């Protein structure tokens, strides 16, 4: 099991101002799974992603990722964990504006210490001829492809995607989802957080959150649909 969450609770603030973002969450994700975490704003889905990615810590419960109990890990260990286990794809891309496309991918390689070939990765996301471009010279879809390429470059087994199509138009969003699905096909666990119910149709599993609780966990209602059938 690549991701294992047991009785995970996350609270922000104290006393009367305390807010429970996640409550007693239990979740497992295996290699090659494409999991969509669905829920409205404030449901706790991003908190869940941050905890799995060790950007945030659970208030209680167990979080074991790739065999590592990250609830008990030191701050320093968490840096190592992130470098070697997870890779992020952000809604706002978060590319380095001073680096070219290729250099952004190189960053992913350097951060994880992998030996991937940046040109090969760029080729795989359809940007083989745009390695010398800077982020501002690319379209939104191309920028997110660079984000995916950077995540792929790490070679890490888990890909954490926070609203990866949130900034993109439908057609570009679909292309990005196809790319992500392909990574799951390559054996990576892909965890996509979104409020877009349509995206959940293409997932292997859909985990639905509401007010910090998992209200459902299973295959998409109506079965897994091909990307081409998605509409939003």
């Amino acid at each position, binding site marked *: 099991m690549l991701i294992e969450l047991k009785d995970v609770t996350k609270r922000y603030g104290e006393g009367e101002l305390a807010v429970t973002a996640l409550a007693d969450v239990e979740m497992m994700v295996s290699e090659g799974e494409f999991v969509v975490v669905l829920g409205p704003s404030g449901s706790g889905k991003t908190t869940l992603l941050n905890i799995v990615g060790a950007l945030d810590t659970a208030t209680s419960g167990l979080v074991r990722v790739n065999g590592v109990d990250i609830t008990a890990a030191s701050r320093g260990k968490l840096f190592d964990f992130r*470098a*070697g286990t997870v890779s992020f794809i952000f809604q706002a891309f978060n590319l*380095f504006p*001073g*680096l*070219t496309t290729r250099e952004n991918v190189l*960053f992913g390689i350097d*951060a*994880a210490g992998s030996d991937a070939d940046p040109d090969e990765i760029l080729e795989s996301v359809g940007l083989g001829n745009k390695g010398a471009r*800077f982020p501002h010279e690319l379209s939104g879809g191309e920028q997110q492809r660079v984000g995916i390429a950077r995540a792929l470059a790490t070679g890490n087994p888990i890909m954490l995607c926070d609203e990866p199509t949130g900034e993109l138009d439908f057609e570009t969003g679909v292309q990005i989802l196809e790319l992500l699905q392909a990574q799951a096909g390559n054996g990576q666990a892909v965890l996509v957080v979104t409020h877009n119910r349509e995206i959940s149709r293409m997932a292997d599993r859909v985990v639905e959150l509401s007010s910090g609780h998992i209200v459902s966990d299973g295959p998409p209602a109506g079965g897994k649909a091909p990307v081409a059938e998605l509409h939003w």
Partner: protein
Amino acid sequence: MRTLRLLLRWSWRDLRSHWAKVLAIALVIAIGTGGYAGLTSTAEWRRDSYDLNYRDLAMYDLRVDLATGSFVEEGDIAALVTAIPSAASITGTEERLIISTQVDASSGDEIVLSRGEITGSDFSEGRPEVGAHFAHTGRLLTADDAGQPRVMVERSFARFYELPDTGELQVSGGRTVEYVAQSTTPEYFAVAPEGGMFMTEATFAALFTTLETAQDLAGLPNGINNLVLTLAEDADRDQVQAELETALTSLPVGATVLTRDDNLSYTSLTTDIDQDQAMFNALAFLLFAGAVGAAFNLIHRLAEQQRREIGIGMALGIRPRVLAFRPLLVSAQIAVLGVALGIGVGTLIGNAMAGIFADFIPLPVWLTDFQYAVFARVAVIGLVVPFVASAIPVWRAVRVSPIEAIRPDLTGRGSMTGRRRTVGNSFAVIPFRNLRRTPRRTALTIFGIAAALTVLVGFLGIMDSVFDAVDTAEAESVGKEPARVSVGLDGFRLIDSPEVQAIEGSEAVATAEPLLTMVGSIVAEEDIDVFIEVADLSDGMWIPTMARGELASDGGIILSEKAAADLAVSVGDVVTLRHPQRAGLTSFAFVETEVPVMATHPHPVRSLAYMDLSQAGLFNLVGATNGMNLLPATGFTTADIQQALFPYEQVTSVQSVTAVTDAVRDAFNEMLGIIQMMVMVVLLLALLIAFNTASINLESRAREHATMFAFGVKVRTALRMAVVESLVIGILATIVGVAGGFAIVWWMTQVLLPETLPDFGLHALIGTSTLVAVVIMGVVVVTLAPLLTVRRMWKMDLPGTLRLVE
């Protein structure tokens, strides 16, 4: 009104969250404006102070000097003066007797033996009519002291050796005199004895006494050799000088009429004002420009951080002027705080400068009020710059569509970054890309730090150049005989006279060589005064280094390289030497003789010249001497020779050949106070700029850092990148700062000083210690500044920062 209250409340929160940056940027402005005011106003209060003191103590306008060793009866010169056609424009005259002496101010174990001068003036009316005194300790002499062995000792000498307020001294001939005061007089506001160098209080003891006492000590009843006079404000000084020169030709001895502008002490101080001020102005401008440039850059970046919020405001339909209010309010806070702190910084710098000058120059009164008018001029710029710095990014934000303002401003980021294929680790690339993607911002940061460093290099480099000249002078004076001792006699003596033989025969002396020291000038479009040492240049114990040329059998003069350059002559050329020639037993007349330049020497003092003793006939002084070079006998030191020769009345000075250079070095060492103050100011400025830059970088790149951390990049790696970025800025700023500083030093030594202090030849130089200091400040301090942000990196809210949608 409600909107205004909201904006004020919002701005107050801005201030609270940015208070450290606001304070730091305000301090940058304060250092720029206050430093400018403090540095550029020294001329105002120095000039005011000098004018007041020169007026109150009646500095002379004209001075009559008889030829060396010549004396006339009391009243002789005064009679000539009162008979000139312009006598009505003379407001005061003072006949004086000035005699060379040695002064023994030793006390306990400390031996203080110095050459010096006794100036006798008329105290019968309570104080001399011209050249009055101010007592820093003790009491002024009065008419009752006439003829008594009482003197006043010059304040700077007394202070240098920490003499008691009053006490006893011995003068040549073993006479003991009581000094009743440590005093000063306008001619000694800066100690620069005739034929000597500026700021030589350590090696020259001036004593002031009544005319009667001086005559008694000199054994010259009724003798005088000097007259000083003051003129009415509307007097034609040149006319009076010319009339005096004509009148003095009737004297049986040679006489010269000098103006106060010929007095080295006076000109050193007065031209020093403009010379110092020119340097201070240049450095103040740089300090100000650097601070303003840095403040502009930092405020600009602070305002730029609000671009997105401005975009949101525009999207909500808020008018640009309302949107501009908040960033401009931050600017107002910075501007007001900066200018308020600037008054404090300016006052501190002004007071520190005044204190340092007061230490050097014992003026009775210093007028050192803070120059608000000077400050006001730059304070206006200090007030305006923050608004302009804020207005530009606000204007850029409001002139585009709201959505463009909300989006990250990527315009032009690729244009300067290059597209070369990256070789190696991307962490190594990021710092350089960060610098290149914002070239204007990088340039302004570099400029701000470089300007501060230029100021530092300017100050330190000038000191390096001076000390280099002093070292050259010392090396030249020492030659192969570091133990050499220079002896001055009270007049011209025959070489085989008992007085000279007595010196040669002293048990402390191993070898003695007679020499002549003469004062003259090289006639040119602008005459150059020369002090000619006439000595055995073929086989003497000391021979000047000949940079060019060599000793010629048919004679000639050895000029300093500086003099040769200023006269545009080279070895083999002929110059006209105006020099004294003995006309009678004790009288001299000035004559002009054509002499070839046989060589040049490297001593930085332009006026030093040398001739071989075989040419003593030029002065009609064959077989005579007025000075000697001695080597101490085995087991004896310079101090032993000083003590051994002190009882000899004919000896007026005994000093090591390095005494003058040591004194100059000591004097300049005292100036290190100004340097140290400027180092602190510049260090603070560089640190503030570097810290603010690192701090704003951290904020504006928060998302990039958060992304790095999300990918597992460690804080130390991100910090290393920030340090590398700062290192590059530091290195570039240091290179620019050193180059700028060298330009300042070059300008000072090659353009400014030759005009104001033509007697010194300085080379533009930046010493190793200066370079080390600048590298420490420019590279090390700037490089390490990002480390101050480590806590904020550690505490960064990663999820919150990453979720920010721009």
